[in-house]
């Protein structure tokens, strides 16, 4: 099983989902960078993280100077284009994802855009909540991808745009 690294944008949505713990069935371990952890203060999120750490599904990814340096570079490079730039915690996840072959869990459009235009990051596997739901459905862990996506959007108040849904058009009829 692969391991993953999650950024703030992913966690603040995913943790609100009633079946959020199913994600631990898809990955060996999900890393949370320290820079992401410092952004989280709510009781619900911290409890979820503490329980994940306790059960071994989560682990904290320390600030490593090498990865940190490259992440800062990425932050600067992403600001050259007139689209959403990548902030440090997302950049850190992308770099760690590339260096250590981790699946990056993010909802940040800037990070996803970067992977689509920067050849250095084109091989990084990036998954959003909708992609995780699809994998859960393919693994038989949820019954209906369409119904569960509806539930997910209601519970998390994350709306997927027409473009995002288009990718799964076939399964959402």
């Amino acid at each position, binding site marked *: 099983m692969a391991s993953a690294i999650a950024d*703030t*944008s992913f*966690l*603040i*949505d995913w943790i609100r989902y009633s079946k959020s713990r199913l994600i631990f069935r898809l990955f060996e371990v999900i890393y949370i960078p320290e820079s992401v952890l410092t*952004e*989280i*203060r*709510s009781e619900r*999120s911290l409890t979820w993280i503490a329980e994940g750490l306790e059960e071994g599904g989560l682990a904290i990814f320390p600030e490593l100077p090498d990865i940190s340096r490259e992440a800062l570079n990425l932050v600067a490079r992403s600001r050259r*284009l*007139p*689209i*959403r730039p990548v*902030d440090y915690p997302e950049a850190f996840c992308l770099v760690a994802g590339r260096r250590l072959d981790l699946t990056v869990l993010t*909802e*940040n*459009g800037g990070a*996803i*855009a970067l992977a*689509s*235009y920067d050849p250095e990051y084109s091989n990084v596997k990036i998954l959003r909540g909708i992609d995780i739901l699809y994998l859960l459905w393919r693994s038989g862990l949820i019954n209906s991808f369409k119904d569960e996506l509806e539930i997910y*959007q209601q519970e*998390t*108040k*994350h*709306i*997927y*745009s*027409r*473009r995002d849904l288009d990718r799964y058009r076939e399964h959402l009829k």
Partner: protein
Amino acid sequence: MSEKILKEWIERFKEAREIRRRYANWDFIRSQPPKIRIALEYYIETGDFRTAAKMSNMSVDEFIEIAKESANIPTVD
């Protein structure tokens, strides 16, 4: 970066902003003290929750909680 890809991403971010604007509870937003109101408006326009959270002196997840629950602003991208 190819112009085609760039155009596509610009469109995506525009669409995300439209969604945030459309769902937002503007009555609630207008009733907030300036710091929070400006942070929420900034967030609607840019999707940049980090800066918005700093503007309102909150942690990221605390800010998002208010944005979603009280101001009805969904996360989109």
